[in-house]
């Protein structure tokens, strides 16, 4: 786990960056969402990596507990990220309908 999680974060960020550099607008959206997930994994890994007890009082004494706070934090972060991403998707759809193209360079060319 100690090696797997950083690797997963690296892959998420790498794939996200790669997708963001593509010309299709949908790939940009997907790339941004992957990077968002990467950030969430970083946040949750700040609580505990490895084997920890469930953070419920009175279950078992002595063993290390997982910090529950980052789990609460990423719930908030996921909800916020979801809202922003939904808005971005709707906006992309709007751009596609208005300009009849999903190519970012063509969209940029439309500016007067």
């Amino acid at each position, binding site marked *: 786990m100690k090696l797997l999680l950083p690797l997963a974060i690296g892959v998420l960020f790498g794939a996200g960056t790669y997708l*963001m550099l593509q010309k299709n*607008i949908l790939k*940009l959206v997907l790339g*941004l969402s992957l*990077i*968002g997930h*990467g*950030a*969430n994994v*970083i*946040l*949750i*890994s*700040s609580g505990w990596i490895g084997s920890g007890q469930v953070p419920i009082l009175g279950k078992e004494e002595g063993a290390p507990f997982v*910090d529950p*706070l*980052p789990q609460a*934090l990423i719930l*908030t*972060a996921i909800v*916020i*990220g979801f*809202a*922003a*991403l939904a*808005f*971005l998707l709707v*906006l*992309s759809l*709007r*751009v596609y309908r*208005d*300009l009849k193209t999903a190519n970012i360079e063509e*969209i*940029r060319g*439309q*500016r*007067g």
Partner: protein
Amino acid sequence: MTHLLVLPVLIPLTAAILLLLFRFVPMARHVVIVVAAVSVFVVDLILLSTIQSEGIQTYRLGGWPAPFGIILVGDLLSGIMLVLASIISVCALFYSFGYLKEDGQRGVFHPIFFFLWSGTNGTFLTGDIFNLFVMFEIMLISIYSLLTLLGDKKQVEAGLKLISMGLLSSALFLAAVGGIYAFAGTLNMADLAVKIKPHAGHPLIAAVAMMFIGVFGLKAAMMPLHFWLPDVHSSAPTPISAMLSGILIKVGVYAIIRVFCLIFVDLQETFQVFILTLACVTMFMGAMGAVAQTDLKRLLAYSSVSQIGYILMGVGFFSVAGMGAALFYIISHGIIKAALFMAAGILKKMKGTTEMSAHGNMIKISPMYTLFFLIAVAGLGGIPPSSGFFMKFQVIKAGLDGAFYAPVAVALVVSLFTLFYLVQSWQKVCLLEQKEAPESGPSIKLLIPVGVLALLCLVLGIAADPIIQLTTAASQQLFTPELYIQAVLGAM
């Protein structure tokens, strides 16, 4: 414990929800807007005077004690930013009544505007780093929808740019919060300051500090990260342009000040050269961009980038005088730039474009407009009777006192360019003859907020002394972070 501190967040939030409920009842909406705007303004003023007389105020949300629960903190910096935000918001609200058509636009615009105001006030008041993230997001999501509300092609394109950069910066912010939480095990900013103090040299802390500069620099349009600003600020509906340039880019600067004067106090010297260099580049490149523009709103947007450079320079000196100068600059620039954007919006209303070549002869059409525009131009250019003189003078004096000669030289050269492009745009719009006269002059509803802001700029220049004392006191408070920590953790 009084509930004064939570009101600047709570009142706009309640107003926004009420406005959504009364979306189809114009009369009720107007009452809610006026009552909410006036009461937030009054509360902000009371709050500032309370902080001035009684020191730093704290408020425990839900009654949870300091390092565990979310805490709201009002120090002089927050107080000043709140009052500035409410001045500009009230003017932008008033302006929006003349600017937006009645049919449905206002019914959607105003609730989101109040969400935006609530989020902005929240960022200024919160004492918790994750809560700062949440407040930032409330603010950003409101900006996304306000920007794309009218559905112009330009606006939708700028919206795509803004949302992509917003999502990227939130991811970076979360990663930075994760890093700092893994290190210190707390999210309360005062508690973080205490926990990090003994480990100031740790490489993870420097990495996190760098990430915060990236996140907040993106919001403040610091140079390599400024690419989104000109499109967004110039294509947004004018009341929102005024809010964006007047207060929302300063939110990024506010966050940089807060983080570096509280959590990363010991890293100030490490990052000083970095921040000063970026400030100079920002200042210079922004001015170069502005000189090349033919569209008034784009010119003003580039000018905002350039002025952010001055503010960052004042911050980068990391001295009491420099920080005080930066705060005065934030106030003065916010008021002047809001006035200028609103003046540009009047042109847009008259002929449907802000291209300067399409306009002219405003001095005959509306002498009042010409006068207000001139005051604002003089303000940003730094001509003495306006507040602009003191804002530039103080930054440069702070630089000379601290023996930072190279940044001061850049600032002086750039201020010449500033004066050049502003006077040129004023002359093009107001003095040059134009064959096609517009059908009607500027409407009085739109002129009043511009006039109020221009007047404030003059008042701030003539009676600068109390404001300078206030910003200096705020800056002294920032450089004794023990006061802040004492106020937050001492209340345990």
